[in-house]
């Protein structure tokens, strides 16, 4: 594949992933796809892009896998020390700002967009977006990664304030699934992590159990099953 050395370096790099974080009345839900690609090859079809920082704060990683992993390792380390010194769980805001510090101060070297989500006793469920460059933005919901391009319109229409946990979970799964349908760099399974005052729950939605969208057809084990069905249909061109 030819690399055009005069490619527009000023345009933001699209990142292989779909990541989402939404708040609901009681906590947050983080969601992500599971595809890690190296060029056109899928290096890992079941990655876990939702990474734990503390008991109550998790992040969604997008962009360079290496960069996002090293940032999350550093922030986990700093948060651990901070928690010991503070004597109580770190707040989501502190975690998000630590991510921001690393992203901002190393902006020339890093290529990672991160969504920080969690629950603390002071502010409840909170979502912070830390895109390329190290801006920090608190939002009721956040989307990121290359797959997110296909979700701006969807969320503009489907997002409602004050959803229940189940409504929010369904929204996240639907959204990641829609993005996977159109974004080549997103795929695999949908993972979600729900964080609230009661704790953390992980969920797993395998790729073959996601809803079918436009122009997608039901999966079968074999053509032979179709042919041998009770009402065998003639083969059509």
């Amino acid at each position, binding site marked *: 594949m030819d690399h055009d*050395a*005069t*490619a527009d*370096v*000023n*345009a*933001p790099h699209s990142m292989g992933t779909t990541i989402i974080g939404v708040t609901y009345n009681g906590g947050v839900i983080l969601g992500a796809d599971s595809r890690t690609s190296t060029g056109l090859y899928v290096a890992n079809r079941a990655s876990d892009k939702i990474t734990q920082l503390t008991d109550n704060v998790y992040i969604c990683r997008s962009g360079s896998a290496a960069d996002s992993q090293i940032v999350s390792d550093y922030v986990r380390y700093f948060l651990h020390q901070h928690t010991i010194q503070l004597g109580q769980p770190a707040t989501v805001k502190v975690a998000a700002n630590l991510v*921001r510090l690393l*992203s*901002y101060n190393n*902006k*020339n*070297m890093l290529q990672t967009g991160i969504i920080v989500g969690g629950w603390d006793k002071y502010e409840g469920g909170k979502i912070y*977006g830390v*895109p*390329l*460059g*190290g*801006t*920090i*933005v608190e*939002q009721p919901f956040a989307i990121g990664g290359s797959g997110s*391009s296909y979700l*701006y319109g969807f969320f503009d229409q489907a997002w409602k304030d004050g959803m229940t946990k189940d409504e929010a979970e369904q929204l996240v799964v639907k959204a990641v699934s829609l993005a996977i349908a159109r974004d080549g760099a997103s795929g695999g399974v949908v993972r979600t992590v729900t964080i609230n005052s009661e704790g953390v729950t992980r969920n797993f939605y395998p790729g073959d159990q996601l809803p079918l969208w436009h122009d997608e057809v039901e999966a079968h084990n074999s053509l032979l099953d179709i042919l041998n069905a009770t009402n065998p249909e003639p083969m059509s061109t």
Partner: protein
Amino acid sequence: MVSSQNESNLLSSEGDSQRTQYPYVTGTSVIGIKYKDGILMAADMGGSYGSTIRYKSVERLKQVGKHSLIGASGEISDFQEILRYLDELILHDNMWDDGNSLGPKEVHNYLTRVMYNRRNKFDPLWNSLVLGGVKNGQKYLGSVSMIGVHFEDDHVATGFGNHLARPILREEWREDLTFEEGVKLLEKCMRNLLYRDRSAVNKMQIAKITEEGLTISEPYSLKTFWNFAAFKNPTVGAEGSW
């Protein structure tokens, strides 16, 4: 004889902080004007990510100390860092506890030095800033760019505002504008920017600073006008036109 041409440095090691960076999340124009009682400033709440309007609730007008107001366009992460520098500046000023406080002129000068020194290191803060305020009855309005170009004037603007708003202000600005007249003037400029600036967003704030204090309005939107005959039938009388 070997002449080794260094192949296009566009994609050279990004660890090289010696070269200028590029912006990611950006805010568009800020407009500021002096009016009878002080300064009025307007900015929309958009944070663009390339051509995507990614964030629509970014506050780009902020208070600085007792007497000043800052508005920023350009890279939002750099603006957030500037706000931290200013916070420290005001903190240290307060710690003197001498009854004196930094006015807009001083803050403007501080910002100019910060921006210019970063520019000299080829590591700019990618912002254009508008700084306004009132101290001891004296109104002050100035701007600083990412390369340290700074000046003060009765009306300033950044980005697209330079091209679209300033001509309007040159014609219609007066020394004795009332608050209502000032707001209408700013809104006229902002509406124009909304029509013609691709990165403009229809949600904005207007801030007012006077000797008494500072207020930043709640976010609001402007009506736009599309109901013109020439818009409804643009190609009438010119068959094949568009």
